[in-house]
């Protein structure tokens, strides 16, 4: 849910199943955003998706921030609360970006421990998303998809499978997206993300600024065929179009979920 659509949503009350919010956009703000969110939360289920939990960071866990997340989750009766398999800063700094972790045994143990601590504190499982990544650490000893699958299992957390991120990451690392998807434990996936990206030729950037490309729709169809349907969210964070354009993409996703590949195309 983006600010540009607040008025449309709260005046038209469009037929949507639920909305996702970026958690940080509604923390430490007491004016217009919360006013609209409160109204929306009364009518639609809300899912919280954050960008600064930094579960992979080696800095201490920020419990004051967790308190704020918890309070927001309670206020909007969030169905679930999540973030990314990444870190956003160390040494007290925040890069406000989703940095990749090295996929090592040490990295896995560290993240499992932190996710468990955070989940215990929040009193609910986290829903963690595979990030778009642009580099590979030489120290990595396992593929990203294996790291994520083991993280979900060992930390007993849920997953948000971002199909566009799978495409972007695989393009950037010369990997097979189908093999990536096959390694993800879909029984742990509670939500799917779809989005547009920017293809720079030498690499793709996860810009969320356009329509979902056909290759990503194809991957989504494959996931749906295996998973049998999951709550799916369309992300569009830059060059945000009219709400009706988002609805077209959302309806297209629904047709894929219903297995009508040809009609969706």
């Amino acid at each position: 849910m983006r600010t540009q659509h607040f008025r449309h949503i709260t005046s038209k009350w469009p037929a949507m199943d639920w909305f996702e919010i970026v958690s940080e956009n509604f923390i430490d703000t007491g004016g217009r955003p919360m006013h609209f969110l409160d109204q929306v939360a009364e009518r639609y289920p809300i899912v919280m998706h954050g960008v600064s939990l930094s579960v992979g960071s080696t800095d201490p866990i920020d419990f004051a921030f967790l308190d704020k997340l918890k309070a927001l989750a309670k206020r909007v009766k969030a169905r679930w609360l999540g973030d990314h398999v990444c870190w956003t800063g160390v040494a007290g700094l925040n890069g406000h970006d989703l940095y990749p972790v090295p996929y090592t045994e040490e990295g896995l143990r560290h993240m499992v421990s932190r996710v468990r601590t955070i989940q215990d504190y929040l009193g609910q499982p986290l829903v963690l998303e595979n990030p778009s990544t642009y580099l590979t650490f030489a120290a990595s000893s396992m593929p990203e998809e294996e790291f994520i699958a083991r993280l979900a299992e060992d930390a007993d957390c849920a997953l948000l499978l971002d199909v566009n991120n799978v495409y972007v990451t695989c393009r950037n690392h010369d990997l097979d997206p189908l093999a990536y998807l096959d390694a993800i434990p879909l029984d742990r996936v509670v939500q799917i993300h779809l989005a547009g990206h920017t293809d720079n030729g030498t690499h793709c950037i996860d810009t969320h600024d356009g329509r979902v490309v056909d290759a990503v729709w194809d991957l989504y169809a494959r996931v749906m065929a295996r998973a049998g349907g999951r709550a799916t969210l369309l992300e569009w964070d830059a060059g945000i179009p009219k709400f009706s354009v988002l609805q077209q993409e959302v309806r297209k996703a629904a047709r894929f979920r219903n297995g009508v590949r040809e009609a969706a195309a």
Partner: protein
Amino acid sequence: MKAMAAPSLATLERWMQAVVMHPEGAETGLRAPKARRLLAAAARDPSAVVLPSKQLSSVERLEIYAHMYYARLVEVMETEYPTVRQLLGPHAFAAACRSYVAKHPSRARLLNGLSAGFPDFLAKSLPRSHRHGLAVDIARIERAMEDVFDAPASTPMTAAEFAAVNGRTRLAVNPALVLLELRYPANACMNAMRRGEQPRIPRPRVTRVIVFRRGFQVMRREQEQVQFRLLQALVAGKPLAAAVRASLVHGAGNADRVAGRLRSWFEEWAGAQLFIKKIK
């Protein structure tokens, strides 16, 4: 060459952060002392830490993150300071933002406070000229607009509550209110620029502006000197009578004139919802 021992997770994270947050980009960041202290071998051979892809070298892959770090934060500041950007020009504004971010990297989970120190940074770093002085003042206004936008919600005082006010009353002030004393007529210039005009850069003239939120709308208004002093005293928590006295001591107005204006000022402030119900 001797193979590099696998760095710890903490070292890798600190190293990557040092490289991608370097103001001159990843290539320079790799060789900078901060990164070298963490992973000296990476300065000689970046591929020992970050693998190249078929299309991009190790450094190019790091540059993606380095570019995004500054681009993202400059973009945030562009939305917060549109009039300052207009006044300085997009390139000078972006350069100022990059310098600011390099010197004051974000330490918060949220972006709301990222640019809190930007007006003071501009005041110290911009050349001395009326254009730049005006830019500093406009930056103070645009920063205040951000703070006011995010301030906690409150309930305005009712007419009945105003009727019960006397000289001993300490009024509760809306947390979504910022008072600014400026060197230039920045609010008027800002209004003109936001209308698409290109006003002449004014000579210095002290102006006083309040930035406040009425309902969910962020508003700005110039105040007379005595009016501003009175509001300052009320914000400081003085009882009404003491606040009026304090404003006369510091202000240019005389008591009779102020007494004659009090009603209209309070009507204006009540309409602006500057006073709120006390939290019990």
